[in-house]
């Protein structure tokens, strides 16, 4: 398998430096750019496997970069954002970013997110019959769900939610995205439906809500299924 190529678009040279060092230490090939326009050109010319995109760039808004990129590419994108800007994160995710990291962040977490995104893209994901993650198993044909071998009986919407999460393990899904998928676009503001549904699902999965093993909350953004051990 060819080494994975990661493009970093970030104007802070010190952040680029530690990203380059740690990514290269994990056998990724790293390209860097400090400008949005140049970053877009590199995406087109070099076809990287993953983009790490800072939202605050000197020449253009990171959101704009994302929007333009999504016009012609479904390249996985992790955006870097500052804290206390949940709305920005949600907007970036809705614009097609695949995940986000909040600055300041640790490298181990970033590496985990990169692995999740790249695994999502690996070629063996040809519509599987069974979805699995960390002891959870969902058979899409028989609609049976088991946790550590024990059968779990889910209502229809609970099943739909778990299906959605299991299809993208480790990926954060925004409230709006989940609501639209499960209740339809008319109800994508009714977050309390989702809160109640998640509560029910956690109870059925025996998940501790204050230290969840499966369904993790991204406060103000959405939910993600814990990536589980690789």
């Amino acid at each position, binding site marked *: 398998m060819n080494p994975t190529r990661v493009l970093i678009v970030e104007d802070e040279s010190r952040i680029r430096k530690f990203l380059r060092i740690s990514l290269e230490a994990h056998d990724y090939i790293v390209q860097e750019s400090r400008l949005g326009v140049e970053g877009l050109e590199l995406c087109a010319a070099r076809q990287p496997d993953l983009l790490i995109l800072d939202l605050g760039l000197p020449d253009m808004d990171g959101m704009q970069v994302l929007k333009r990129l999504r016009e012609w590419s479904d390249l996985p994108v992790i955006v870097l954002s500052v804290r206390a800007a949940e709305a920005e994160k949600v907007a970036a995710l809705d614009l097609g970013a695949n995940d986000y990291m909040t600055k300041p962040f*640790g490298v181990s977490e970033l590496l985990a997110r990169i692995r999740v995104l790249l695994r999502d893209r690996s070629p063996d994901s040809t519509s599987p019959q069974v979805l699995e993650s960390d002891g959870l198993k969902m058979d899409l044909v028989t609609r049976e769900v088991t946790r550590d071998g024990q059968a779990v009986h889910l209502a229809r919407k609970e099943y739909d939610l778990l299906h959605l999460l299991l299809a993208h393990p480790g990926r954060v899904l925004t409230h709006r995205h989940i609501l639209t998928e499960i209740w339809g676009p008319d109800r994508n503001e009714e977050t309390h*439906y989702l*809160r109640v549904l*998640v509560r029910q699902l956690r109870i059925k999965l025996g998940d501790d*809500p*204050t*230290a969840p093993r499966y369904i993790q*909350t991204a*406060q103000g953004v959405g939910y993600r299924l814990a990536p589980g051990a690789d």
Partner: protein
Amino acid sequence: MKQAQTHQPSGALAMPHWKAYFIALTSVIVTTGLAFMLHRVLPLASLSLLFLTGILIVSARMGLRAGLAASILSFLAYNFFFTTPQYTFAVDDDGDIATLLFFLIMATISGNLAARMHREMRQRQDSLHRISKMFEFGRRMSSAAQTGQVLTALVEELAEELDSPVAVLVPGEDGRWSEAARTGSAVVPLESLQEAWDRGSDEPLALDGRLFLKLGAGPAAMVVVGRPPGQQEAQDLARSFCDQAAIALDRTLLASDLDEARVATEREQLRSALLSSLSHDLRTPLASVIGSTSSVLECGTAISEDDRNELLRNTLEEARRLDRYIQNLLDMTRIGQGGLSLDRNWVELHDIVSGATARLDLVPGRFPLTVDIPPDFPLLWVHGALIEQALVNLLDNATRYSPLDGHIGITARQQGDQAIIEVTDEGPGIPPGEWEKVFDMFYTASDSGDSLGTGLGLAICKGMVAAHAGSVAAGEGPGGKGTRMRITLPLAQQASPVPER
């Protein structure tokens, strides 16, 4: 209007003369009638007393002229009807002539006296009225807190007293006049205004059909009365009003100066507290960061791998602390500027707790932390990130003051339409006298040997909870040990249930 008339100094005397004379005539007719009824039982001389009584009443009520008229009419009636020969103005008896003469003199003197009494009483009423007016005005002035209120009260009272439009004009730096307050629609002739201003006279100045009064010692403004009152008393009253208003203006200006000074002092205190907090709380972790990383660079392979990792972990921890501190500073600024915009949503308390404990790396099981939230605890209608920050700060505080193996508890319960969230620790506790003070900005426990606190955390917690119309209070921990921090949040009406489960 009504008051303006009743306080006219000449009150009843100003009523039409014919009416006063008519009343004088009526009273004489009534007196004559009474005298007719009584002249059989009373001696003639006593009847004159009856007439005198009538004259006194008329004089006291209607003033001097009516009194004199009543005297003459009474004299004639007495002469005509009662002295012999009756029904003529001729008088037989010399004694009767003397009686008549004395009667006339007495009537004139007593009428005069009564009228003077009447006038003095009027004047006293007038001055009483003026005093009560001044008193009332003074009270209104002293309750006016701002310059605008003083001026509005002044023009309103003056307009009512003088029954005229009134305006207050203030000179600008460019020599233009601007209107500060007005009632009615007085046209102010600018040349006369300027002239009155230039003269700077203390006395009210009548110019161009208007009355100009200055306001303030080093006059700050001019008061213009559209229709100047004729009486000196009214002018005097207007002047006293202006004097009182000037005092009130001085006071409001002084008060606003004091207020500004107080705010400036507080801001200064806060700024210096912030600066000293900054230099201490940013430098302490930076000292560890610089010391640890430079040790790794300098010593190279001379230190063991374990030690190097220890130093690097140290660096990471301190950097995270810096991050938390900076977050606190940002939050504080937002709270301080009232720029805390709430992005409310339905939030599960469990999620807030798990977010907060994760950020502080307080994993239940690895840390003596218990969380007790009923499974059916209602959803909160809050800005999740802010309540999470409030909880992070409480937990941060609890861990900081807890002994190493000290137990920390998070509990929640519903009480009526309120959510109660408590964080307890087994630290040294807070003396009851400081239960409120701990939420003040830059307050840190007086006897905390380890000064890790920034004095911002609890103030921020309070600010964020208060932004949700909730409250946070400190108290004694369970069993009288440690501290209990209690967040109370109003519960919103729960949203409609989920359709088609």
